[in-house]
C-alpha cells in the first residue's frame, strides 16, 4: 500500500509539537527529557473539557496539530484512534469504587471509560460527523492503526487522520502493565499525492525476518520500547530527517532518495510491517 503524509502532530516527554521536535528527532538537536506539555485550545466546550482525562487531552492536541499542519478541516476527515492502554487513571478510579462497599460509580467516569472516549470528545470538539473508529492491538496498536488508516484512505479516497496515544497507568495497574510514558502522535494521510504531501509511505506486511528498527537516541529508544504509541518514533525520525532542510533543492531530493528510510515494525502473529519513507 502507498499513502502520503500531509501533517504530523506529536506530544511526548520532551517532545512538544512537531515543529519543535523535528530537529531532535532528526538528530540535529539534543533530546532533553521533560514532562509532557499539552497545549491549550482543544476546541472542547469548557464543561466537557473539565470531564476529560489525559488521554483525551493528548489525543485531541496531536490530532488538531496534525490537521492544522496539513491545512485541513477536522470536520471533514474520518478519524482512526489507536491505543493500547485507554485511560488507566479513570479505570483505576472505577475499579476502586467497585471494590468498595456501595459500588457507587460516577456516571462521568463510566462514560469516560469506553475505549472510544477520545473519539467521542474529538467529534464533539471538531463537530465532525465523519466515521471514527477506535482500535487496539496491544503493543502493536500503532501498526494496527497505520494499517487501518491506510486501508481507509485507499478504499474511500478521503484524507484521514490517525491518532495514536497511550498514557501511563497508576499503581497497582502499572505493575501489571508498565507503560513507560504518556505519548501521542497523529498523522494526516491521503491515498494520492497532494501539493501538501511531506512524504510517501510504502507499507507492506511480511513474515517476520528483521528486528524492529530502533531510534538512535538512547532515551528516546527507551520510550519507544516502553510505550506502544511511541513505537512510531523511527517513522517520525525519518519524516523529520526528510523535512529538516527547506527549501528542497534538487541535490537534497536526490540525496534523500538515496537515503530513503526503511523502517521495520514488530507486528503480530509472526509478521512484521515494513515502511519505506520517501520524500515528495
Amino acid at each position, binding site marked *: 500500500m502507498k499513502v502520503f503524509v500531509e501533517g504530523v502532530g506529536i506530544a511526548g516527554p520532551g517532545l512538544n509539537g512537531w515543529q519543535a521536535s523535528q530537529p531532535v528527532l532528526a538528530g540535529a538537536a539534543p533530546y532533553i527529557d521533560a514532562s509532557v506539555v499539552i497545549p491549550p485550545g482543544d476546541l472542547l466546550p469548557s464543561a466537557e473539557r473539565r470531564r476529560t482525562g489525559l488521554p483525551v487531552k493528548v489525543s485531541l492536541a496531536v490530532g488538531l496539530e496534525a490537521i492544522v499542519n496539513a491545512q485541513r478541516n477536522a470536520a471533514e476527515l474520518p478519524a482512526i484512534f489507536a491505543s493500547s492502554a485507554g485511560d488507566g487513571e479513570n479505570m483505576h478510579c472505577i475499579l476502586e469504587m467497585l471494590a468498595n462497599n456501595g459500588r457507587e460509580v460516577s456516571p462521568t467516569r*463510566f462514560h469516560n471509560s469506553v475505549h472510544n472516549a477520545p473519539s467521542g470528545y474529538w467529534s464533539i470538539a471538531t463537530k465532525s460527523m465523519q466515521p471514527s*473508529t477506535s482500535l487496539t492491538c496491544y503493543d502493536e496498536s500503532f501498526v494496527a492503526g497505520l494499517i487501518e488508516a491506510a486501508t481507509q484512505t485507499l*478504499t474511500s479516497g478521503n484524507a484521514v487522520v490517525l491518532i495514536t496515544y497511550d498514557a501511563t497507568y497508576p499503581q497497582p495497574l502499572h505493575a501489571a502493565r508498565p507503560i513507560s510514558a504518556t505519548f501521542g502522535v497523529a498523522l494526516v494521510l491521503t491515498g494520492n499525492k497532494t501539493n501538501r504531501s511531506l512524504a510517501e509511505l510504502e507499507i507492506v506486511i511480511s513474515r517476520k525476518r528483521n528486528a524492529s528498527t530502533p531510534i538512535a537516541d538512547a532515551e528516546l529508544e527507551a520510550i519507544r520500547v516502553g510505550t506502544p504509541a511511541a513505537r512510531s518514533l523511527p517513522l517520525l525520525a525519518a519524516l523529520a530527517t526528510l523535512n529538516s532542510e527547506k527549501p528542497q533543492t534538487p541535490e537534497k531530493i536526490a540525496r534523500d532518495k538515496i537515503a530513503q528510510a526503511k523502517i521495520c515494525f514488530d507486528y503480530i502473529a509472526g509478521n512484521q510491517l515494513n515502511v519505506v519513507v520517501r520524500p515528495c
Partner: protein
Amino acid sequence: MRCDFLDIDLDTYVGRVSGLEDMPVRADLAAYDCRNNRLAQLGLEQGNFTEAVTVARQRYGRERIGVFLGTSTSGILDTELAYRQRDPETGALPKSFNYEGSHSCYSVADYVQRVLDLAGPALVVSTACSSSAKVFGTAARMIQAGLCDAAIVGGVDSLCLTTLYGFNSLGLISSRPCRPFDAERDGISIGEAASFVLLEKTSALMNSPLAAPDAVMLLGVGESSDAYHMSSPHPEGEGARLAIQAALQSAGLTSDDIDYINLHGTGTKANDAAEDKAVFNTFGSDTPCSSTKGATGHLLGAAGVTEAIICALSIQHGFMPGGLNTGHIDPTLKSAYLLKNKQQTLNFVLSNSLGFGGSNCSLVFGRMLERAGR
C-alpha cells in the same frame, strides 16, 4: 433471568451464559483464561464454525485470513475481582493477575487468532455498543485493499461490574426484561455473548460451486459520529440517519429496497426515540422493523455481529422476528415496529448499531443471487 451474577445487588435482569464458571479456555492457552475468552471459546465451538474456518485456511492460507473482533470491556472482570484482593500493605494486585491475557482490550482477538491457527492482520475495535458492527467495515476494507482474502469478524462481551453498575449510574438499567419501543420502556437488560462470522471475498464465491446456496452477502457498511454527547444520542437521530444513508449508498441501494430493519432498539427512552426519528426520516412508516434485544438483552460489544447473524438468518428463512416484551408501542414513535413474527421473502435487510460516544454503524445484507442478478 433475574440477575444472579456474582454478588451483584442490582434490581435487574441479565442474559447470563451458564457454565462459563466451569469451562476453562484451551489448556495450552491458559494465560488467556478469563470469562470473556471462555465465552469466545464457547462461541467458536458452536455449529460447524471451526470446520468452516479450517476449509478457508486451506483455501487461502493462514496469513490471508484476518481476525477483527469487537468488545467493550474484554476481560476486565478479572481486574475487578483482583481489586478486591489487593495487598493490604502495598496495594499490589494478586500475583495470579494477568493483564495481557484478560483485561487488555486486544486479548480476545489474540486468543481467537491462536485458537483458529491464523496469522493475518488482527485488531479489536472498541467503540462501545457499535464495536462488532464496525469490524465488518474493517474486514471489508482489508479485503478490498488486498491484505486479506477472508476474515473472522465477531464480537465478545461478558458480564462484569463495570457495565452493570456503570449503566445503573446513568439510570439506564431496567428492573424488568427490556421493552424496546414500548411506551413504558425504562432501560436496558445486559446480556453476554460471543458471535462469529466468516467473511470471504466476493470474487472467490461469485458463481462458484464452493458458495453455499443460501450464503448471505455483506453489501454495505455506513459509519458516522454524532458529535453531540458522550452518553446521549443526538436527539434528532442525525448521526444514525447519516450511518443508514452511508450504508445504503455503499450497497448501491435506496431505502425502498430494504425489506426489514433490525434496530439497535435498546429500550432506553433516548435511544429508541432518536433511532425512530432516523428510521422514519429515511424509510417512512412502511418498512417493518424490530429490536431483538427483548430476546437477547443488550450484548454491548457483541450486539452488532449477533444482530448481523439474526439478519442473515432472517434472509435465509424469510422470517422477520417480532420484538419481545413490548406490550404497547410508544404512540410517539412512527416506524413500523413489528410485535409479531412474520414470514416473508427478504432480499435486503439493514441492521443498526449505535454506541456511546456517538459511534454509529449500519450494515446492509442481501442474498447472493439477488446481488449477482442485479
